[in-house]
Each structure stands twice: as C-alpha cells, then as structure tokens.
C-alpha cells in the first residue's frame, strides 16, 4: 500500500488536487457556485506552474463543454466542472461528449436547479443529466470525491469504455466543508492514472477523420448501440480500476457500499453525503436490536441493477431516499431505478420512496430515523404511502 499524507481539505480542494495529479492537457470552465473554488484552486496550480494544463476561461458553460469536446476530439485529457444551472446550460454538448466517446472528466458539484434560485445541494442537476450517456459516480465525503476523481480518468479512458465521467459531490456539504482525508503522492497518483492515449484525434493529419457529422435515419441508431454497449462494458472496468485503486490506497470501492446490509431486514438506499448521517442512524437502530442497513450507491450510471437486486433480495422493506424530485413521475429517479431493478427479482422486497433535502434542506438524524421506523412498520405488513416527502412543512 502506498504511503499517503493525511490532509485537511474541502471537497473542492481535494478534487482540484486529484485533477492536478492526473495532469490534464486542457481545462475549460466557467465559474458557478458551489463549483467555483474547485477550478479556482486548479487555476492556482496552473498559474504556479505545478501542472502543465492549458486553462481555457470561457464565456459560458455551453462554451466550457464545447471547448472540452473540441480539445478531447484533438486527443487531449480534459477536465471541467460545473453545478446546477451551469450544467443545464451545457446540456446540448453534454450529450455530444458522450456520443463522440470523449472521456472528459467533470466535477458536478451538486446544486438545486432553479427556480426559485437556490445555491444549495440537491441532486436535481445530476438527475436531469442521467440519460446523457455519461458515467455517474457519487461521493459521500471529500475523501471519496478525491478518490473518485482519480479513478474517473482510468474508467472513462479505458479502451472498452471511452465515455465521459461525472464526479458528483454535494454542494457545500462536501464542496465547502473541511474534511480529513488521505492523499496519494504525486508520483503514486501518476503511476495509477498514467498518460492518456486518445482513440482518435482531429489533429492527426496522417489519418484524417470527420467528427460529429450529420447522422440521420440510416446510421444514428447504430451509433447509439456503441454508447449502450460501452455502458455495459463499464461495469467490469469500474470493478477492475476500483480494485487496483483499493490495493494502492487501502480504500476499496465497488458499485455501492453495503453498510451493515448483509443481515439487515430493513434497508435504506441513497447517494451522497447523507450516507454519513444514515450510518449513524442505522447504528442507533442496531443498538436497539433492529436489523437496519444501508446501501450507498456510488455508481449511478451505468446502473448496477443486477448487483443491487441481489444485495436487497429478501429484505423485508427497502426505503429509497431521493435528493431530487422528478415532477409528475411516480417517485424520485433513484426510486424508479431501484424499484424497477427489483421488480421480478428474486425475493423482491417492498420498496418505498422518500424525496428529501431539496434546495439544501438539512437531512437530520430525526428524518432518517422516521424512515427506518416506517420501514420497520412496512416490514410488519403495515400499509402506507409508497412515495413520501421528508423534512418539508406540509
């Protein structure tokens, strides 16, 4: 295992360090809260000569992603970052990055979408982009944001994958909170990430290519097959890269973390920083003799449906907590995925849903406690609402 330094950093700083250690050729970005500090820190590294990256300061997020796509199509390793409305403005090009199979790494510092305008955390930005073709990793802490940011390059750039990767971490809760974490040395990190060999480059005059041509009824569908299958192959790559990173850092990662889940009768499924709070509540219930557990999803795209169904098989009740509303849908986006993964699966448990924490509303111990109480009731066969709102004044 590599020797590591114990440091105190915010999530934004931790990701900036990971990005520096990955030595990207190009970074393009436009500031938006709460992402700004990440690129600010990274720009410091560039200005101080600590990393040799072409920093492109653009006039909007649409341009940030456009510049990222252009640079990546030229064969560069590219990073960018955004949040909320910035991500929404990138929208069109976010899809293009995945379609062109360009492994751009982006920090998406999760923040509520307008309106009304709100700068705090929820996952509505990421959930809106869930069909864009990117790999989505979610983080519980600054440590995980750092680790996932390093692994993102290896996952996205793998020849079997070649897809852009989004490193999602909660705005302010992770991005702006100083956290204690362990960081690899620059050498060890570089040995792990390594140089990038692009699949193609528009600057390769020996092998001229056309990137992004008009693609109509005769070929568009076939090209989408490429994206669909790359996502399927990404599972093995995520596993292999995570295992290698685990051996190097001592921090193991998989599609999800199972916390006291194996023998649990009731279980919560969620993503992001709320997992820390949920673990405390699970512990408290365990002390009372209640067999509670947590499944913290790390890999949201591609969605590990089979593994998740296996981990939740036979539970007496499962509660999915969504930090995003999907208006007009039956429950939040994570709920519909989880429930669909379990439908028809072996020993299918009842699945309930709680939408919580919108616009940065604090999710405290009491709220998660009420979820576990309700799951315990459901496990005893007591009926109630399937889709619920949590921590809101009704």
């Amino acid at each position, binding site marked *: 295992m590599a020797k590591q330094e114990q440091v105190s950093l915010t999530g934004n700083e931790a990701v900036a360090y990971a990005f520096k250690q990955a030595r990207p050729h190009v970074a393009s970005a436009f500031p938006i809260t709460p992402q700004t500090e990440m690129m600010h820190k990274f720009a410091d590294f560039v200005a101080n000569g600590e990393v040799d990256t072409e920093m492109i300061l653009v006039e909007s997020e649409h341009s940030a992603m456009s510049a990222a796509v252009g640079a990546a199509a030229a064969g560069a390793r590219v990073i960018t970052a955004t949040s909320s409305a910035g991500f929404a403005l990138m929208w069109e090009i976010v899809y293009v990055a995945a379609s062109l199979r360009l492994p751009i790494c982006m920090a998406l510092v999760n923040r509520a979408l307008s309106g009304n305008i709100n700068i705090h955390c929820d996952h509505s930005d990421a959930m809106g982009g869930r069909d864009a073709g990117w790999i989505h990793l979610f983080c519980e802490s600054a440590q995980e944001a750092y680790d996932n940011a390093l692994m993102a390059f290896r996952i996205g750039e793998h020849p079997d994958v070649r897809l852009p990767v989004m490193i999602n971490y909660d705005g302010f809760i992770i991005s702006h909170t100083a956290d204690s974490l362990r960081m690899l040395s620059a050498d060890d990190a570089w040995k792990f990430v390594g140089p990038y060999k692009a*699949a193609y480059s528009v600057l390769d005059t020996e092998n001229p290519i*056309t990137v992004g041509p008009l693609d109509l009824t005769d070929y568009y569908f076939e090209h989408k097959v490429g994206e669909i299958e790359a996502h399927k192959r990404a599972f093995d790559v995520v596993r292999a890269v995570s295992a290698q990173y685990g051996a190097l850092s001592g921090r193991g990662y998989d599609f999800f973390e199972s916390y006291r889940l194996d023998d649990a009768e009731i279980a919560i499924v969620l993503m992001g920083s709320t997992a820390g709070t949920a673990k405390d509540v699970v512990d408290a219930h365990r002390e009372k003799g209640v067999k509670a557990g947590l499944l913290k999803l790390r890999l949201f795209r591609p969605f590990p449906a089979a593994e998740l169904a296996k981990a939740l098989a036979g539970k007496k009740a499962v509660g999915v907590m969504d930090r995003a509303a999907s208006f007009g849908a039956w429950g939040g986006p994570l709920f519909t995925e989880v429930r669909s993964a379990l439908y028809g699966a072996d020993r299918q448990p009842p699945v309930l849903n709680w939408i919580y924490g919108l616009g940065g509303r604090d999710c405290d111990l009491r709220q998660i406690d009420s979820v576990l109480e309700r799951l315990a009731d459901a496990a005893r066969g007591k009926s109630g609402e399937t889709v619920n709102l949590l921590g809101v004044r009704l």
Partner: protein
Amino acid sequence: MTLKRAHELPAGGIIVEAGNADAYNTGDWRTFKPEFVAENCIHCMFCWIYCPDTAVNIDTTAEKSRMIGFDYDHCKGCGICAQHCPPAAKGKAAIVMVRDEK
C-alpha cells in the same frame, strides 16, 4: 450501398475514410434539378465554383477545363449554378432548372 451493422462502425460515430461522401447518395431530396445545355456553355467554370456541393462534373484532362454535366447523386437542386451561369443573361442558358420527376 449496403449499410453497415452497429459493430462494424468506429466508436463515436466518426468517419475514418476521407472523402467517402462520394459513395453516399445525398441527391435524393431535390425538388428541382439543373439540366445542362451543352451547346450554350462557354466553360467559364462559374457553376463549378459556386456549387455549394461538388455536384458539377468537369473534365480536367484537356488544357482548358470543360463543364460536362451534373452529379445527380449529390446535386441538391438549389439552382445557384443556374443563377450564376453567364450565358443565361443573353437568353442562351446553359443551365435550366426543371422539376425533378422521380
């Protein structure tokens, strides 16, 4: 032209063969098409320069290039060539736009 299957295509929908638009028929959504009236042509090459596609065929083997007709697999029927064809001003059009009856 036989269409390739998904797994035969390069990742990212890129085109790796230079100039393969030549083998791809994009001239099938025309409403009008240009017809070449050879005896009125002064071989000025205006049509060849103005054509937004590459649908004007020319013969470059002689010392002076000669207009020889249209590539209807790629001509979009925009009529720009006919607009710029000089003999038309003297009432002896070398390019006449006609409805494309397919």
